[in-house]
């Protein structure tokens, strides 16, 4: 049995008295990271992810010669929507009402939680089936329902597993990506007491079939089905939900009440616009051409229908997004939560999602989280990036993530949240950079000394002040003159 490392669990404690949903463990980012790097189960899982998702995306893109044009079109739709967000939300609301549904508005997580609980109480709900929703995570709806006597049942397989383990998701589209099948088997053996204790649970197929059989009855028992939304269509008042498992469809077609929780930036103008975005979503996310189930739902059961919910509610959540419009982080609102930036990020692939300490991880999380819960609590995140640019390169919506990470770093520096050692280092560098002669003397001397000291081996195994580097790899010893002096030679003395 492999050792299980205790994980930070931001899910455990909703912050009291504020609109914030979850307490972030981002302040403990350094410790989270060290723990993640030492966790062999997690490192195995991340290795699987690094080989899986990016290769599948590459293959899907290779099959679609128009992919770059599709990205441009998808981006342009969201650019247009954000400029007219109020009008499209009003139109969407009107159409949902025409379809016989109800629309509710929530300024923050607390309002959204109360709205959902209110709907559950009105129909005397005891259980709520849920299909995976990042907004559900953002507002910590499960804890709120549990604390008020309503049982939430996650139905996405990965989300179900982490609900049983009381963990937050570690990836936008693959919430249990950090776990091994052995860990899943341990969890099922502990929780599914209705099955023989000695049964074999070695194969993923067996684990899936067990979860399928357990969840089947839950779908039919549930009073309310709660889903997120990939998009909201203003033209028709439709909610678009995408899954591969089919869990969102069972969640929204079997219970008496369907509740949708969606954030304001999810709206798009027309069905054609939704279609254009769907063409880049699955390809970027899983490398599929299209996800298995794409469902456009427009209101409750109609006269003569043999199934479908009697009541249909859409909760539109702001939670800080309206303030992002028009500012440095405006473009982040184009994000469609595909997870491609996580799958391609060298930092995410090294530490996984939990180390980021809140609901969203990877480059998109590092940009979004400080917007939603404040820079003070999440200051490490904008620095959890090498600024290599891969995220922007593959983002289907062409979001300039590195630029926005730099915005946060600048704000941190301006508000003196950067650590004193970094600030002192920057000051020293700035002092030298403004004095070229001194700079050349200092770097020239340093390089000459290091070159001499390292001449025999050609590299350093340890060196004072750069232990973070030399702990994992050698530092090459400098060879020959500095860049500036080489440049000077080549350009005949002009620098």
């Amino acid at each position, binding site marked *: 049995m492999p050792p299980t490392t205790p994980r930070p669990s931001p899910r455990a404690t909703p912050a009291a008295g504020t609109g914030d949903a979850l307490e972030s463990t981002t302040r403990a980012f350094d410790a989270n990271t060290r723990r993640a790097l030492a966790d062999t189960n997690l490192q195995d899982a991340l290795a699987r992810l690094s080989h899986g998702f990016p290769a599948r995306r590459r293959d899907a893109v290779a099959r679609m010669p128009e992919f770059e044009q599709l990205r441009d079109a998808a981006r342009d739709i969201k650019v247009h929507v954000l400029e007219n967000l109020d009008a499209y939300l009003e139109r969407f609301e009107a159409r949902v009402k025409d379809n016989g549904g109800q629309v509710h508005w929530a300024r923050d997580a607390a309002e959204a939680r109360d709205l959902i609980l209110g709907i559950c109480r009105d129909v005397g709900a005891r259980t709520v089936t849920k299909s995976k929703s990042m907004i559900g995570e953002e507002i910590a709806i499960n804890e709120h329902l549990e604390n008020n006597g309503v049982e939430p049942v996650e139905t996405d397989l990965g989300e179900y597993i982490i609900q049983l383990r009381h963990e937050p998701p570690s990836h936008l589209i693959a919430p249990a*990506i950090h776990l091994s*099948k052995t860990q899943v088997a341990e969890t099922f053996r502990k929780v599914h007491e209705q099955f023989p204790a000695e049964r074999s649970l070695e194969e993923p197929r067996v684990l899936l079939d067990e979860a399928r059989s357990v969840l089947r009855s839950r779908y039919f028992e549930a009073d309310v089905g709660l889903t997120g939304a990939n998009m909201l269509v203003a033209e028709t008042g439709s909610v678009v939900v995408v899954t591969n498992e089919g869990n969102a469809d069972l969640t929204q077609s079997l219970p008496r009440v369907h509740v949708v929780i969606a954030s304001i930036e999810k709206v798009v103008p027309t069905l054609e616009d939704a279609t254009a975005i769907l063409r880049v979503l699955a390809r970027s996310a899983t490398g599929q*051409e299209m996800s*298995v189930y794409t469902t456009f739902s427009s209101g409750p059961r109609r006269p003569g229908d043999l199934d479908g919910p009697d009541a249909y509610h859409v909760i539109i959540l702001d939670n800080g997004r309206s303030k992002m419009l*028009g500012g440095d982080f405006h473009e982040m609102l184009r994000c469609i939560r595909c997870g491609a930036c996580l799958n391609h990020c060298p930092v995410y692939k090294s530490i996984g999602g939990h180390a980021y300490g809140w609901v969203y991880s990877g480059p998109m999380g590092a940009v979004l989280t400080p917007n939603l819960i404040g820079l003070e609590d999440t200051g490490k995140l904008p620095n959890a990036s090498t600024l290599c640019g891969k995220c922007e390169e593959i983002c289907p919506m062409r979001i300039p993530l590195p630029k926005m990470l730099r915005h946060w770093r600048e704000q941190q520096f301006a508000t003196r949240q950067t650590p004193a050692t970094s600030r002192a280092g920057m000051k020293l560098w700035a002092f030298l950079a403004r004095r070229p002669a001194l700079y050349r003397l200092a770097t020239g001397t340093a390089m000459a000394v290091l070159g001499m000291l390292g001449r025999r081996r050609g590299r350093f195994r340890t060196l004072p002040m750069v232990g973070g580097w030399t702990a994992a790899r050698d530092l090459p010893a400098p060879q020959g003159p500095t860049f500036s002096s080489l440049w000077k030679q080549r350009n005949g003395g002009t620098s």
Partner: protein
Amino acid sequence: MSEARTQILATIRGSLKRGSLPAEGQAALDQRLGQPRSGPIPARSQLDPVARIDLFVGEAERVDATVDRVAGAAEIPTAIATYLAGRNLPGIIKMAPDPALRAIPWSENTALSVTEGPGVGDDMVSVTTAFAGVAETGTLVLLSGPEAPTTLNFVPDTHIVVIDAGCIAGTYEQVWTEIRAAVGGPLPRTVNWITGPSRTADIEQTLLLGAHGPRRLHIVVVENRDPENG
């Protein structure tokens, strides 16, 4: 929560540094909504009808659906009975109460047992029609209604879809145009795009079919080749 609504819309407008959209801006939006524009259309689906059906079949099989092509409606019962027997599945079908399906001679030549209704707990096999197919990705488009309960698409282990070859379009956009023309008002309560059977890769990225929805998706394409069945 109208207070929340007012405040959210006001904050949006404040951030965009404007008030409500002026009349001409609203008119431009109305026009964009009233005359939906397609984005770039992938060239691979722009084919003649025969090649388009082949592409649909190829793409559907690529995502683990199985496809049977029959000459006419009269062949459907035997084709389905053979498919089920070949997989050792029961010949007990829950069928959508759809006139097109009712017209099929189920009891001739087969021992299939056919009932109608929505999908419920112990249904093993469902048969439905599709409004359209999309060749680009082998996607089926199903509309809900009194004749088409959506639960049949998700509850049973095996979902069999009967589709007329003439309903297979190149792109999703063509299907939206056809749906708007066919319904002439609000969209049906549910429009389901289905691209292969249910699946998950949530455990160690191992791809497994049959997560919560059907384990098998079988498509019967009716080609109407025989004039007798035309």
